[in-house]
């Protein structure tokens, strides 16, 4: 994790990212959160502006809110302690997510490309090529993110904004965004709508409605269009309506920090 570069501000870049992500969620939605930061972003939304959000994890843990700080995993006792229902993976990822019932999912990325495709599988030196050779660095694989990317109504991708993470084309598509753009998803009949936003430590990217290429929609009070373009590995287009994201309100920060009890986002 990058050290906070916002010493003069009352919040960290990661907190801004979590709050911006949380703002993407609406009250009453069925929402699935991954482990780590995306879970904090999701439960922040529930704590702040979406009290009736129906939060779930891919383990089939329902009705829970974390206790004692950021859970180590989506089945950690910190989230199992006050659940109203435990089922299983088929239920959560199949019946509720791949089916198209889930409104929104939050996923992370090691690498993302201009069509919102996500790589969490490995880093290769250059292209993989025709033979599937070993990765230089093996990552965690798709987990449930592929299922969320295929099935959820929309997907919010959270990622630290660094050039190496923003590639023109990911070396391995672990979780599909818009593939090679336009209507490419149609060929596979995905019931989910694809990524609606990439929320980063520097700003928010959203897809062009037709080409599905991600363009810069907004930056933060502490970032700028130029900084973001420099930190993006493709020639990032900028929306004509590009704007500053409102800073976290005191209420938002307070809610987030209640959820992030152990301060994971402030480290």
């Amino acid at each position, binding site marked *: 994790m990058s050290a906070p570069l916002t010493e003069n501000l009352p919040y960290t870049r990661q907190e801004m990212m979590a709050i911006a992500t949380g703002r993407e969620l609406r009250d009453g939605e069925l929402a699935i959160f991954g*482990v*780590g930061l995306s879970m904090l972003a999701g439960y922040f939304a529930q704590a702040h502006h979406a009290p009736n959000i129906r939060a779930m*994890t*891919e*383990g*089939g*843990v329902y009705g829970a809110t974390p*206790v004692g700080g*950021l*859970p*180590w*995993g*989506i*089945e*950690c*006792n*910190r989230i*199992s*302690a006050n659940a109203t229902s*435990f*089922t*299983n*993976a*088929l239920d959560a*990822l*199949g019946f509720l*997510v*791949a089916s198209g019932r889930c409104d929104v999912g939050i996923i992370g990325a090691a690498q993302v490309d201009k069509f919102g*495709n996500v790589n969490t*599988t490995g880093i290769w030196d250059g292209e*993989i090529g025709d*033979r*599937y050779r*070993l*990765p*230089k*660095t*093996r*990552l*965690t*694989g*798709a*987990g*449930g*993110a*592929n*299922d969320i990317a*295929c*099935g959820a109504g929309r997907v919010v991708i959270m990622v630290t904004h660094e050039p190496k993470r923003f590639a023109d084309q990911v070396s*391995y*598509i*672990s*979780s*599909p965004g818009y*593939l090679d753009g336009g209507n490419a998803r149609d*060929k*596979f*009949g*995905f*019931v989910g709508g694809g990524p609606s936003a990439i929320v980063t430590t520097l700003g928010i990217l959203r897809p062009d409605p037709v080409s599905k290429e991600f363009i810069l929609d907004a930056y933060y009070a502490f970032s700028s269009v130029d900084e973001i373009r420099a930190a993006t590995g493709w020639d990032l287009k900028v929306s004509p309506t590009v704007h500053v994201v409102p800073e976290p309100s005191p209420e938002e920060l307070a809610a987030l920090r209640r959820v992030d009890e152990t301060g994971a986002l402030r480290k």
Partner: protein
Amino acid sequence: MPANKLIPLAEAVRRYTRDGIQYASGAALPVGSDAVVFGRELLRQKRKNLHAVFHCNTQQLNLLAGAGAVDKAECGFSGLEVFGFANGLRRAVESGQTALEDYSNLAMALRLLGGAMNWPFVPATVNIGSDIQQRSAFAPDEYPATRKIPTVTDPFSGQEIGAFSPLKPDVAAIHVSLADPLGNAIMLGTEWSRFELSRAAKKVILIADAIVDTDCMRQYPNLVRIPDIVVEAVVYHPFAAWPQSSPGFYDVDEAHMKLMNKALATEEGTADYVRDYVERYDDIDSYLDLIGRDNVERLSNSATSFLLDPYRQWIKTPAEIAALTAEVTA
């Protein structure tokens, strides 16, 4: 099939596992329930060339792969959640020691469902269109891979979707919270895919944190998602998932999760870990000593402890369990 199926851990590994088998762990994700202790015993008995089927990686696969016992693995998620990358598995994959075939978490559950149903294939509306479909670590020369997740035509609409291959592991060691001596089991916390796995695997061994009387099962039959009729053997082992967690019993041991994963990052560290934490105990008592009795007490003081309350009255003492185990192994 005897009525009482309690046997010691070492006996279960001896009797039901062989080099080269397709071995499945019955776990609840990387931080939760998993019979990590079964993996330790596999190493103690020098099992190797395993084909590991893990819905998600856990510290068990991390250890087995890190120690070089795994030739092939199939996984939905190969990390350790907030504990980061799984260094043992990662090292084995990057060196080519372990071929790791990637699927998503739903895909693994569906493949177990398909194995349990004995279907020839399972409809796939996920994993298609991504490199999970196009790339196969088990058939690296095929690109795009055509036999990993081939297409199938929906006869109603004429549209193409994908098809997953079902899984039927040779042996599954499934971690459960409570089992009776007959093999009826209760899981507390997410099942993840243990229900499906218990029907997909050819042989099922339960590893239980506690043994209860069958009267407990008769009081809570709807909780008994794994019935005795599909179970070969029951192993009693407290802290079986350590350093992972078991809802109702104990929390994740954060310090050991980190220590273990750090050790597994190198060959030397792994050798040290095996020496110190795989070979250095002889029975349940010395295993708990190794964890540390204070640590055992601290981890047992969980916010989830209340989940166990309804069942405590039926929990058998170590002495009662030893007597029952002696019955079977006599």
